[in-house]
């Protein structure tokens, strides 16, 4: 299979809204547990990551109560009555209650960390999730999770038989479902969404495909005749409604891969211009500006240009009147990816260069000496 074929195949998987083949998925999960010498878990199917959180929190609460009961019994002198089995239960309960800690059984030291890393990270984030944005942010990063499943690469790194079987099982799971959270005695499995809207981002170079080391040595291109691989990343994207919706109704709104509050799209005409200058998250702020349009934002806030540097990466210093706060200053600047951002800066800033230097808290000469800004 060529790289392009492999990428296309996984993109099709990523875009799929088909229900999972539950039998096949559960068989793969059981294989994984067997490889790690754990008993088969109870399979808990959920319709969305939001439902997974509810379920996991319920489990957590129940386990906390159970743990407290056990502790109470122990305090009442029941320790001597507690056999090995109860002791193990207590241990498990204590572990599971520590949701952000050593929860997942697959975080065992012998598990390939670099394969697991992202998955683990997002599981942790989902565990402590409180806002729609974080949930959806985790969702669209699923694309990242898929990348390591290239069999040649993984087999070249993990040559032992168990690793190979483990990766096969993980690939089966990845082809069938959305997220999954393995626990010692239960595994939460999330069905794919029922609706998904995506677009392709701009072409960008990528590092050499793992396992495809033609012309490459340790990540360095040594044969200039080998073209550098590129790709067009997939992103959740819809200007008109949810970009992803699950079968329980949970949905997330995203524009060009950036998760935004639902109201921004559902009531787009009510989106206030100052949001495009002051929203706390810079990526969302940029999207707000795109939704409203700079041609509307600047006149409505009486914006004037204080200083414009010829280098768009140094930027343009603007002054605008925010409601209840006239005369605020902003640096409109292009980042290395070609996107335009706006950063609030102190009113004392007189030039775009000074404002840019202030944002990094460095002398202006550092900005002029930058060898690259990517």
């Amino acid at each position, binding site marked *: 299979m060529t790289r392009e074929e492999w990428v296309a195949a996984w993109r099709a998987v990523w875009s799929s809204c088909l229900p999972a083949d539950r039998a096949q998925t559960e068989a793969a999960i059981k294989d994984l547990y067997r490889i790690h010498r754990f008993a088969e878990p109870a399979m808990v199917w959920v319709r969305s990551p939001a439902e997974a959180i509810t379920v996991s929190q319920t489990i957590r609460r129940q386990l906390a109560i159970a743990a407290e009961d056990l502790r109470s019994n122990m305090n009442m002198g029941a320790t001597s009555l507690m056999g090995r089995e109860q002791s193990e239960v207590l241990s498990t309960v204590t572990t599971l209650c520590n949701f952000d800690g050593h929860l997942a059984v697959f975080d065992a030291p012998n598990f390939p960390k670099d394969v697991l890393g992202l998955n683990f990270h997002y599981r942790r984030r989902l565990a402590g999730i409180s806002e729609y944005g974080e949930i959806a942010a985790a969702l669209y990063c699923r694309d990242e999770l898929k990348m390591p499943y290239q069999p040649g690469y993984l087999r070249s790194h993990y040559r032992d038989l168990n690793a190979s079987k483990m990766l096969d099982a993980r690939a089966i799971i990845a082809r069938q479902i959305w997220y999954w959270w393995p626990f010692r005695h239960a595994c939460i499995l999330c069905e794919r969404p029922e609706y998904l809207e995506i677009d392709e981002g701009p072409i960008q170079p990528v590092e050499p495909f793992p396992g495809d080391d033609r012309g490459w040595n340790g990540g360095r291109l040594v044969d200039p005749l080998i073209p550098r691989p590129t790709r067009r*990343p997939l992103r959740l994207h819809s200007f008109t409604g949810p970009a992803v919706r699950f079968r329980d109704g949970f949905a997330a709104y995203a524009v*060009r891969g950036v998760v935004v509050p639902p109201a921004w799209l559902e009531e787009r005409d009510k989106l206030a211009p100052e949001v495009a200058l002051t929203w706390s998250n810079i990526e969302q702020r940029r999207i707000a500006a795109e939704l409203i349009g700079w041609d509307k934002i600047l006149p409505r806030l009486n914006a004037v240009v204080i200083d414009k540097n010829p280098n768009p990466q140094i930027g343009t210093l603007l002054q605008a009147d925010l409601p209840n706060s006239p005369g605020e200053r902003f640096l409109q600047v292009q980042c290395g*990816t070609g996107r335009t951002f706006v950063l609030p800066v102190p009113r004392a800033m007189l030039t775009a260069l000074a404002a840019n230097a202030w944002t990094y808290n460095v002398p202006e000469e550092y900005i002029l000496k930058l*060898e690259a800004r990517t």
Partner: protein
Amino acid sequence: MKTIDEIGAQGDVMFVRVDDLPDNVPLRLLPGAGRVVVAHSETGHHHVAVAEDVQLYGTDDPMVTYLVTDNDVDVVHERPFDTHEPLRLVVGGKKGRTPAKKSKKKSVWQVRRQRESSPEGSRRVAD
């Protein structure tokens, strides 16, 4: 991949070569072996420094950390789209371009996070 000898920036993170770790600032070694997150992102799109021996030191200032290494360090942005191109922080710099592992002195890079003005004063740029 862009090569940096002295000063470079990747999104909201700037890397400035310095002679040595500061001796008047309390430092603490941050976790990570061979792969350290130099800039955490709320959405998980971290900026990560990758090198065999790379170490990251935190300071009392949450906007400033230090990377210490014997080797070139690749800084990658972990996002599948709108990705900032990787930077390679070269061990020897312009002065020597010392081949990795032959340099007797470690390279030290000051890592600065970008900030913006806020009603409270200033805050780290969040993405």
